[in-house]
């Protein structure tokens, strides 16, 4: 059996990639996908830790995270759609009239 | 006794009743508003007289103490703790005395938003009286900070052209100091377990190095308020911009809160630190005396001159307080009253002429004595009182202060008092300069200027004389027979001095 650290390490890398996506992409949908990747990475860590502790609660948490992700997606995509209707764009950099 | 009908509660909070009444009055009925405020403040004065009647001058301790548990939760030991003793009785009386006078002085000067003005004024009175009566640090701090608010509005709404600047500066400066004090208060509350001043004094035992820090934190708040040199920069702005009544109260009472704080809190709470700091405080005081006097002399604006003279006068008070002997402290306290009367009266007088001429520039004045003999005579008396002419109140205070400081062990050298005495000469220089510029010499151009507007400069009317006469009576009374005033504070001051000396002995 591989040390679980490897899996956690992988999850960290994926998490960082997700976070990077939020920082460098301008397309709201891709940013959103990046956030999904972050959650997914966290899930991986959960499952890995669940393996270490042989505790199912880690896996259960993943369920909830997936559900939450689904809920967020529903709202988030609705929001993006609404904004697109209004602005014909989902470039987040164009959403910067509020500042200062 | 019923806590609500307790004399201290009454004298502090009675003006709130006036506030309530005012709130329900129409703002167009200006005279009714004025009368309401005036009567409220007069009744308050009456209550303070009742307080005085019940005051036992022989008792050095706090009297008429009211001590109700207030916030006694989770290690908090805060009470509604008020009391009066020799240190504060005079200042309470001064407050209740000057308030009706100030209100009377606004009769024709304030025509805009009379209702608001009176509201703020009465609120201010609550705060000021509370400051002098509170014996719980938390309570004290509440009153202390609260006074900022009405004063801020008084300057900011009814002030001169630069009023907003002055108001904000006043607020920020004073608050800056008080916040440091707040931390020190909290420290005391945490490590001494109580906010009650008498208990804290009795407890003592704060290590010397911490005492020094606490002393400095308290001093920061008070020194700005006094204001001690070099923290006086807010004062000329506030005074010049404030309306007359505001200046009167500012000079008459608010500044006293600073000096009172020193004698009520700094000295008894941190006696060792006070002894250690005495030479430095004296040094600042002396610099303030000379500096204030010199700067006053060079002013072109009458109000500014009077404002800077406060720096000088309060330097005397500070010098006296930190002499830490009976003469110095009693003189200091009396001088607080004196300064309140004299400078208050000066501001009133300046305001009265300003109402007619709308200028405070020295250069346009001159020869007014001929046109306004009563006004000139009153101004002369007040100016003489302010410069410490023997026989008037200023001298009694100044002399006892200088005498105390001269032989003070804690200050340690007669040089401070010697230098401060030069301030007496300089006081004559600027006060006479003011008097000469305004009243002597040929008629100034302002007379013509006023005539151009179809008026002529009038002498004081009855209302104005009535406003001033009480102050003048006190000026003479204190000057000629200050005994009753000293008698009120003597036992308390003796006790304080004894405590400080014990601490000083223990230190060596």
């Amino acid at each position, binding site marked *: 059996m*591989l*040390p*679980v*650290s*490897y*899996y*956690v*390490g*992988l999850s*960290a*890398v*994926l*998490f*960082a*990639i997700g*976070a*990077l*996506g939020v*920082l*460098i992409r*301008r*397309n709201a*949908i*891709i940013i*959103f*996908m*990046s956030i*999904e*990747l972050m959650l*997914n990475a966290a*899930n*991986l860590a959960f*499952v*890995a830790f*669940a*393996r*270490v502790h*042989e505790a*199912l*609660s880690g*896996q*259960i948490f*993943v*369920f*909830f995270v*997936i*559900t*939450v992700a*689904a*809920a967020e*997606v*529903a*709202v988030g*995509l609705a*929001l*993006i*759609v*609404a904004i*697109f209707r209004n602005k014909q764009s*989902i470039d987040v950099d164009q959403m910067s009239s509020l500042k200062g | 006794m019923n806590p609500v009908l307790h004399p201290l509660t009454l004298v502090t909070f009675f003006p709130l009743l006036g506030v309530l009444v005012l709130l329900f009055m129409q703002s167009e009925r200006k005279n009714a508003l004025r009368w309401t405020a005036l009567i409220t403040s007069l009744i308050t004065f009456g209550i303070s007289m009742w307080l005085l009647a019940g005051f036992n001058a022989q008792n050095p301790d706090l009297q008429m103490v009211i001590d109700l548990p207030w916030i006694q939760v989770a290690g908090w030991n805060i009470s509604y703790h008020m009391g009066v003793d020799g240190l504060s009785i005079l200042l309470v009386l001064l407050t209740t005395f000057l308030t009706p006078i100030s209100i009377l002085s606004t009769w024709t000067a304030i025509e805009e938003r009379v209702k608001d003005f009176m509201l703020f004024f009465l609120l201010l009175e609550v705060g000021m009286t509370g400051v002098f009566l509170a014996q719980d640090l938390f309570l004290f701090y509440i009153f202390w900070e609260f006074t900022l608010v009405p004063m801020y509005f008084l300057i900011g709404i009814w002030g001169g052209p630069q009023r907003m600047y002055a108001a904000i500066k006043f607020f920020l400066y004073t608050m800056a100091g008080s916040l440091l004090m707040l931390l020190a208060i909290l420290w005391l509350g945490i490590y001494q377990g109580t906010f009650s001043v008498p208990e804290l004094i009795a407890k003592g035992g704060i290590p010397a190095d911490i005492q020094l820090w606490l002393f400095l934190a308290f001093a920061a708040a008070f020194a700005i308020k006094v204001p001690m040199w070099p923290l006086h920069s807010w004062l000329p702005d506030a005074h010049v911009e404030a309306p007359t009544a505001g200046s009167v109260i500012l000079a008459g009472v608010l500044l006293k809160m600073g000096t009172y704080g020193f004698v009520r809190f700094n000295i008894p709470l941190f006696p060792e630190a006070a002894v250690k700091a005495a030479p430095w405080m004296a040094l600042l005081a002396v610099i303030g005396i000379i500096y204030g006097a010199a700067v006053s002399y060079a002013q072109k604006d009458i109000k500014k001159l009077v404002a800077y003279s406060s720096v000088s006068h309060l330097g005397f008070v500070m010098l006296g307080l930190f002499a830490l002997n009976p003469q110095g402290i009693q003189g200091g306290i009396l001088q607080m009253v004196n300064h309140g009367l004299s400078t208050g009266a000066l501001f009133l007088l300046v305001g009265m002429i300003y109402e007619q001429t709308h200028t405070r520039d020295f250069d346009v004045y001159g020869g007014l004595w001929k046109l306004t003999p009563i006004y000139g005579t009153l101004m002369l008396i007040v100016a003489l009182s302010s410069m410490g002419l023997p026989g008037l109140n200023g001298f009694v205070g100044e002399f006892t202060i200088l005498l105390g400081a001269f032989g003070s062990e804690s200050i340690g050298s007669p040089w401070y008092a010697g230098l401060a005495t030069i301030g007496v000469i300089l006081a004559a220089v600027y006060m006479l300069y003011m008097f000469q510029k305004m009243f002597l010499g040929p008629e100034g151009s302002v007379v013509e200027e006023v005539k151009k507007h179809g008026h002529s400069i009038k002498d004081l009317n009855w209302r104005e004389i009535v406003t001033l006469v009480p102050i003048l009576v006190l000026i003479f009374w204190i000057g000629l027979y200050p005994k009753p005033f000293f008698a009120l504070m003597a036992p308390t001051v003796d006790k304080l001095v004894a405590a400080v000396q014990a601490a000083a002995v223990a230190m060596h």
Partner: protein
Amino acid sequence: MTPELITFILLASIAVASGLGMLFSRNAVYSAIYLIINFITVAVFYLLLGGAFIAVSQVAVYAGAIMVLFLFVIMLLGAEKLGRSGDTLPWQRPLAIILGLGLVAETLYILFFQAGELVALKDLPEGFGSPSSVGSVLFQEYLLPFEVTSILLLVAMIGAIILTRQEKKNAGR
């Protein structure tokens, strides 16, 4: 080099590569597909770690339903490609990458140098991660969270409706 390790490296490379693919792909559709690949890879890891039911859910719900929703919206809006009108924030990207690498370095450093060793000491008991075991825990221990998720989904639904419903007139804020 055990077979496990080889498998891990292989799968990990796919996961990271698909993640980077999503990150840098010009086309949003491609990004979505890369993400699906990533999700499926991660599902395999779940299997390896004894989370069979989770793995299935991952593929069905995440890679399936959610990502399809994404694709659907991308198509709906026609927002596959975003016109590149110059980078509005020139220093954002390099800084972000440096920080991202920093985060990775930090985490790995912690995992491999500071934290205690994370190893599974013994084999998993029979049925660990199976639907029945998961179900029983879920409905016994985690009843409340489960109910909360239902409310959460309801709220999300309402929210989505509110946000997308066409209003006749809207004034002000």
